[in-house]
């Protein structure tokens, strides 16, 4: 299946006006997150032209077209739509003439409009296209927002991921997804996790069944999407495995090509998982803010050694 962003969804979310309502926008698919301002193309320069991009008519393009006779204007636009661009969007409330709209209908290219300024609109459009066109995957795990940090808990079935999540929720943190986490790679640093619609707000607890967190504990306990900041992998305790004792060197897990910090956490009776998860979250945050407790320990040890000499 080819990846693409549904134009009707984009038009609806950005509140675009449709000058060509005869064209079914849900059948239009945008396959690239890039945008083109077709000033050069309107002037007839079509070398290196990427026809897959959405075309934005801003002040420059409009002023240029405005200087032309109506016939020349239609011809310039015809040349553009002949290349089968996904759509043309007119910014700053510019309204295409009846003749150009007829042209759009003829070639089946949607003409849309917005009242917003071109640059600001373009930034939002690119962000939205990047989101819609992002590579996706699904991972077996639980995603919780802990103190604003997106914590993905993974591990074998039945190891206690959902139980850990429930305890975190009861301690005031928020559930994003249980069991299946759908992940989008927005860019090389950002992964956004959501829940599939079917299992949204639900948690499965062994022995109890399915519970609806939102209706049981309230809206403050749930969240629709969350950036993934780090991963905790729950494991059975193995005597042979070396677990991280200091936290000087981070381990990483590969998700869609992005490297995410991953802590392997051995399960053992008497270890309070929720408190450990909370601590890992604030510690992760502190590291982002530039303080690393393990490095501090190392520094103090070094000072001690120097003092002995």
């Amino acid at each position, binding site marked *: *299946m080819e990846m693409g962003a549904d134009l009707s969804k984009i038009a609806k979310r950005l509140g675009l006006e449709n000058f060509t309502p005869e064209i079914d926008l849900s059948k239009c698919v945008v396959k690239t997150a890039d945008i083109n301002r077709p000033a050069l193309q309107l002037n007839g320069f079509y070398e290196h032209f990427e026809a897959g991009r959405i075309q934005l008519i801003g002040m420059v393009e409009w002023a240029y077209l405005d200087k032309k006779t109506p016939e020349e204007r239609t011809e310039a636009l015809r040349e553009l739509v002949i290349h089968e661009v996904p759509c043309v969007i007119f910014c700053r409330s510019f309204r295409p003439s009846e003749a150009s709209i007829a042209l759009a209908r003829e070639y089946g290219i949607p003409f849309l409009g917005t009242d917003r300024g071109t640059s600001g609109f373009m930034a939002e459009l690119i962000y939205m296209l990047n989101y819609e066109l992002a590579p*996706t*995957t*699904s*991972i*077996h795990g639980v995603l919780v927002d802990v103190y604003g940090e997106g914590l993905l808990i993974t591990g*074998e*079935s*039945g190891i206690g991921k959902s139980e850990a999540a429930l305890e975190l929720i009861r301690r005031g943190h928020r559930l994003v997804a*249980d*069991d*299946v986490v759908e992940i989008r790679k927005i860019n090389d640093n950002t992964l956004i996790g959501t829940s*599939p619609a*079917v*299992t949204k707000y*639900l948690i*499965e607890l062994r022995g109890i069944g*399915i519970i609806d967190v939102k209706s049981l504990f309230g809206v403050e306990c749930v969240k629709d999407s969350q950036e993934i900041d780090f991963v905790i992998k729950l494991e059975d305790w193995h005597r042979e495995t070396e677990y991280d004792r200091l936290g000087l060197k981070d381990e990483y897990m590969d998700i869609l090509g992005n490297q995410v910090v991953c802590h392997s956490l051995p399960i053992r009776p008497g270890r309070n998982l929720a408190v450990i998860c909370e601590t890992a979250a604030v510690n992760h945050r502190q590291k982002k803010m530039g303080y690393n407790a393990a490095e501090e320990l190392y520094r103090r040890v070094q000072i001690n050694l120097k003092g002995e000499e």
Partner: protein
Amino acid sequence: MRKAVTVHMDTSMESAPVAHLVSLANQFRSRVYFEMDTKKVNAKSIMGMMSLVLLPGTIVTVDAEGDDEEKAVESIENFLSK
């Protein structure tokens, strides 16, 4: 061990058969995954399996890994084909 299996059961979308399927997968020590399109879900979890749309005729890849993987794939295939 991986195997593509076609779903035949006509009640496959209802919750009771999915629950049976999950308890069946739980009988094995192997890790069992169902792969469909871009989704990969753990066959031992009811929520994951519910989020798959298993209509008759759909093809899913059963991916099992462990010492009883062959038995797991075989029983799941039997369950989906009946």
